[in-house]
């Protein structure tokens, strides 16, 4: 059989070609190769020679771009970065489109820096802190809107939402020493982030896939931002030392110029890095979630035992509750990020059981927090702070209970991973709505106190 090597060469060449379609993973190519070989064997058995059989079998597989598109629709997680690239832009970063994008990003970064700098010049610190998100988020949303070529209607809706939030934060007759103003300031970034997500999804915020992409974007943005911040801190520290030796104090410059321009700039540059598919982080995400999920579970278990043992439930004080909420938010972020980074076709394994353990531990801690809060409300009456915290903890509890249920179902093979993913993406907007309620409705409800 001297045609054998040529058939093998043809199949190898076919594999090579299929590999270039990024939606089709190597395992899928193996699967399709098995199919191809099965078909070729049947065709040669009916009398075709290898060449003919190969051609017919490849033709029967269908046009590869159509098949690849179908794979892409089913496995958007493999491609989410490709989909956001400008159509036709090569990825070497040297094309005019890529250079124009960099120019836009840098201009917007400077714009955000200027906005913060102006705010810092003309506002007192409390007003600045309340508005700083509002000064930066429109620039980030603007970059995404530019990149996604948003329609006029979506742009208008986004702009109106930013303006409305600005009005609420600055025109409401807040009692400056009250708690509703602080609550509004803390919850405004959540609303802002939801608006950024709207721009990210290109207005298609109803799509579950786009929401999951936004979760990935958020996670990678956080990692890039942390990396940039770390690098900058080292640089600034060295600079401090060097200039200090020369008798120059860098601190005023740092406070007045480096921070207002550097932090918003880093955020925009980080967003650009995530968008421009620098694939460094992609391989880190699953590793990070695998390292931190067991660690977080251990931490939750320790806190739970300490809470139960050391203090009676009703004496849990306020700082502790705030800390607990911060921990729970972290757990949630970790859960979301690991779900978004997981290969949805992988079978349930040890890591899913670990994740379930983390959810259960978080639920136990959340139960303590909710009980303590109810006790405090019963004892001292309702205050805006307590109602906001209770609401948040109840939202968290619902999210965690259902996530736990679905993870358990997945581990016991009763359910697919898709149900767990769908639950996350459909529940996310609830947090944005709750934050908007706290920002917009709480102040009038509690008399702006």
């Amino acid at each position, binding site marked *: 059989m001297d045609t054998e090597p040529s058939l093998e060469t043809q199949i190898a060449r076919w594999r090579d070609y299929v590999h270039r379609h990024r939606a089709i993973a190597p395992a899928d190519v193996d699967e399709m190769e*098995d199919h191809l070989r*099965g078909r070729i064997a049947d065709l040669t058995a009916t009398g075709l020679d290898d060449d003919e059989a190969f051609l017919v079998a490849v033709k029967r597989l*269908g046009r590869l771009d*159509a*098949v690849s598109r179908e794979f892409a629709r089913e496995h958007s997680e493999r491609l989410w970065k490709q989909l956001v690239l400008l159509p036709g832009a090569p990825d070497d970063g040297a094309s005019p489109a890529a250079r124009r994008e960099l120019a836009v990003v840098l201009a917007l970064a400077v714009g955000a820096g200027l906005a913060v700098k102006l705010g810092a010049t003309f506002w007192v610190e409390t007003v600045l802190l309340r508005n700083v998100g509002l000064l930066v988020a429109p620039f980030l949303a603007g970059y995404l809107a530019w990149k996604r070529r948003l329609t006029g209607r979506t742009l208008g809706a986004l702009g109106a939402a930013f303006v409305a939030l600005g009005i609420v934060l600055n025109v409401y007759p807040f009692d400056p020493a009250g708690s509703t103003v602080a609550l509004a300031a803390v919850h405004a970034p959540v609303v802002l982030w939801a608006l950024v997500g709207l721009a990210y999804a290109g207005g298609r915020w109803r799509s579950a896939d786009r929401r999951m992409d936004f979760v990935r974007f958020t996670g990678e943005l956080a990692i890039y931002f942390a990396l940039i911040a770390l690098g900058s801190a080292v640089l600034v520290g060295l600079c401090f030392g060097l200039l200090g030796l020369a008798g120059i104090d860098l601190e005023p410059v740092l406070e007045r110029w480096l921070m207002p321009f550097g932090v918003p700039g880093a955020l925009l540059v980080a967003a650009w890095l995530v968008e421009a598919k620098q694939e460094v982080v992609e391989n880190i995400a699953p590793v990070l979630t695998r390292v931190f999920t067991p660690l977080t579970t251990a931490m939750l278990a320790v806190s739970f035992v300490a809470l139960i043992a050391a203090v009676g439930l009703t004496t849990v004080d306020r700082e502790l509750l705030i800390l607990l909420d911060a921990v729970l938010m972290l757990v949630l972020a970790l859960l979301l990020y690991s779900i978004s980074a997981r290969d*949805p*076709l992988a079978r349930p394994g040890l890591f899913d059981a670990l994740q379930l353990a983390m959810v259960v531990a978080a639920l136990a801690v959340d139960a303590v927090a909710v009980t303590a809060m109810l006790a405090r409300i019963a004892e001292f009456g309702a205050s805006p702070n307590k109602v906001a915290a209770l609401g948040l903890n109840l939202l968290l509890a619902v999210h965690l209970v259902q996530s736990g249920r679905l993870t358990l179902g*997945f581990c016991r093979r009763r359910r*697919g991973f898709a149900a767990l993913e769908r639950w996350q993406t459909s529940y996310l907007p609830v947090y944005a709505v709750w934050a908007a309620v706290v920002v917009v409705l709480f102040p009038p409800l509690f008399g702006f106190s």
Partner: protein
Amino acid sequence: MHIDKDLVAASATPLVLGLLADGESYGYAIAKRVAELSDGRMEWTDGMLYPLLHRLERNGLIEASWGRSPAGRRRKHYAITPAGREALAERQAQWRVVSDALTQAWEAAARPLPGGPATAGGLA
């Protein structure tokens, strides 16, 4: 006879689930079985079978495991899950309703009405 591609697409899920309810199988065997069952008239683009299988797997209706073909190559086998059997039963009920409705509508159309076309309301 060419079968409309929307019809092929709509019947793909119940067909695959039905075949797998009969026992576990792999991609090429499924495609071949479909061709046999329809006397080769339901032509699938073979490549499209795999995204469909992956979708069913992701939704927990079937599960996959890697094995070896007799020739020793990697081969992915699919088996139906209890959730898949439930989904199949539901699909079967749906198709039965559609098929009954079609049969009745066509029988009525094939039977010529006595006395020409009926007038609205009818005269006693």
